[in-house]
């Protein structure tokens, strides 16, 4: 198990290193950062001065190494627009997005796993069709329209929930539903097919042949197996949600990472953009790592070779 984790940690570090390089290059090669920072009406001398101050005139690999070195030393740089350390800026916005992502995932799993199980227990019946319908209805709508629909029904008509800002936990309910709902069809389908397969398996037949209760057969001997691939999918979906939270954060006026990224791009706030890209890349990689470890914990055949 220890060797397994060390192996995966190395892979994760490699993934983060590569994505950080790509992210860094993209930011620096898709425009002239000095010109963007100086603004439209700046004199050429000013642009040149900025270029030298920030080191944009040096070779890109040298800039990258400097940046990585600073990052590893705990210096995340400064936002030239906000006049704040990038660390402080991230610390302010990250918890909002993290909360949103975790709640959205919880909602997605809480809805799609029971639906998938119900569908697998009664395949090709009305139960199956209704479960699928619940998971996919509304998927055709763009997420902002779905979000606006939620706001209209639960915020405006029923007045049950707040629709804007991040002051209380209630503020997170509608955004989490709006964000998490888009992950339900994939998770539901995977749960359903995994359950169908598990219920056909020999060990489930054994469990039934020994008179175990229905709950034990379905959950302990069926779902336990079906859930293993769902873990990996959930990690990927959480990554998508974090990436896709920009629309939802905008609709619900949540000041999270998506919002920050959007603002920073408009302000050409390069240090912040780079840091966000790195955080997102690292989050993807770490989520995948966690999924692998959780998989190993769930499946003794991986854990004990």
């Amino acid at each position, binding site marked *: 198990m220890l060797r397994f984790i060390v192996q995966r940690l190395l892979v994760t570090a490699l993934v983060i290193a590569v994505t950080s390089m790509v992210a860094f290059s993209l930011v620096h090669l898709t425009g002239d950062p000095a010109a963007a920072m100086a603004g439209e009406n700046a004199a050429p001398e000013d642009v040149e001065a900025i270029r030298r101050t920030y080191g944009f005139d040096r070779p890109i690999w040298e800039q990258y190494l400097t940046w990585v070195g600073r990052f590893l030393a705990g210096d995340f740089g400064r936002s030239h627009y906000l006049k704040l350390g990038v660390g402080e800026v991230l610390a302010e916005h990250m918890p909002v997005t993290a909360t949103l992502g975790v709640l959205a995932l919880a909602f997605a799993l809480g809805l799609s796993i029971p639906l998938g199980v119900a569908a697998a227990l009664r395949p090709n019946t009305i139960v199956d069709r209704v479960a699928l319908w619940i998971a996919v209805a509304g998927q055709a709508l763009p997420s902002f329209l779905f979000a606006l629909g939620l706001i209209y029904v639960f915020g405006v008509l029923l007045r049950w929930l707040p629709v804007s800002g991040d002051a209380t936990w209630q503020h997170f309910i509608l955004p989490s539903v709006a964000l998490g709902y888009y992950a339900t069809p994939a998770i539901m389908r995977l749960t359903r097919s995994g359950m169908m397969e598990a219920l056909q398996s020999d060990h489930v037949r054994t469990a039934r042949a*020994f008179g*175990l209760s229905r709950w034990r057969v379905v959950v*302990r001997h069926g779902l336990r197996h079906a859930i293993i691939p769902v873990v990996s999918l959930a990690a990927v979906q959480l990554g998508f949600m974090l990436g896709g939270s920009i629309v939802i954060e905008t609709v619900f006026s949540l000041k999270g990472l998506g919002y920050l990224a959007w603002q920073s791009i408009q302000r050409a706030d390069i240090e912040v953009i780079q840091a966000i890209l790195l955080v997102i890349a690292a989050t993807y990689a770490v989520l995948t790592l966690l999924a692998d470890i959780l998989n190993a914990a769930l499946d003794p*055949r991986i854990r004990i070779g």
Partner: protein
Amino acid sequence: MTGPLLEVRGLKVEIAVPGGMTRPVRGVDFSVAAGETLAIVGESGCGKSLTSLAIMGLLPRAARLAAETIALKGLSLIGLSESGWRRLRGERIAMIFQDPMTALDPCYRIGDQMAEVLRQHRPVSAEAARQRALELLTRVGISSPEQRLTQFPHQLSGGLRQRVMIAMALLCEPELIIADEPTTALDVTIQAQILHLLAEIQRDTGIGLILISHDLGVVAGVAHRIAVMYGGEIVEIGERDAILGRPLHPYTEGLMHSIPVPGETRRGETLGFIPGTVPRQTGELTRCGFLERCPYATGRSAAGPVPLREAADGRLVRCVLPLDGSGRDPAAWTRQAEGV
């Protein structure tokens, strides 16, 4: 003891398949007494597994069951409720399956799986369940049982896993054990050990045992009675010694010619002697089901469905030939195999 332990009368299984209905089990009658081993023998696809699954109430959803009687000590199992089944399975009837590599749940330790079964049926503490599991692992000849309790199935060999399955079947002291091809997936030497173990347990506990196999040679040594199945029907059923001494149904005779010699017939190899395969017939039989492959077939074989008839020694045979054993020439098999 009054009446049999298990009584099965008129058992039929039909399965809806694309374009019609198959009839894998076409009216099977047999009974098992306490303290008796009944072997059910027949080649792949003749309906042995479906027969045993029907007794356990575990038929696939697509299958339809019809039977006059399926009764365990007078308790009818037809139309039993789900909770009624749960109190029966594992508790009064236990089943051992063919493939020990997949029959145990790979996610749980041996000890936990055994304790789960016992505690489903008996209100015992976790510690008591552990002790009982230990006792039974020892009983089925597993060395260092404490260590096995904490292992996962994939850490055990096939033979050991089948021993675990047998131990699990014994947990609640059932009255009947159904073993469906319990040794088919194992190496020849292990096969003999497992069969010997089953026979010994059957003798010591006095339970009823149904031993299913496609290999007459495998069960010949341990069965008290033998039922030979062909195409969803029992074609011959009676005392072991009588049947092995002189088979009366041509199919049984063919099976005996094809008993594999240990070491010369590999696992998974089909029996070579009886030419052809079991024909899939969808409707009711209108003639002898074995007709196409029978070297002795006569005009009367095709005249109508063949009923079971009782021979002088009490066994039942589904054949139109005289039941004194006359009218058969074993050389006919060789001629048929050679296509003469």
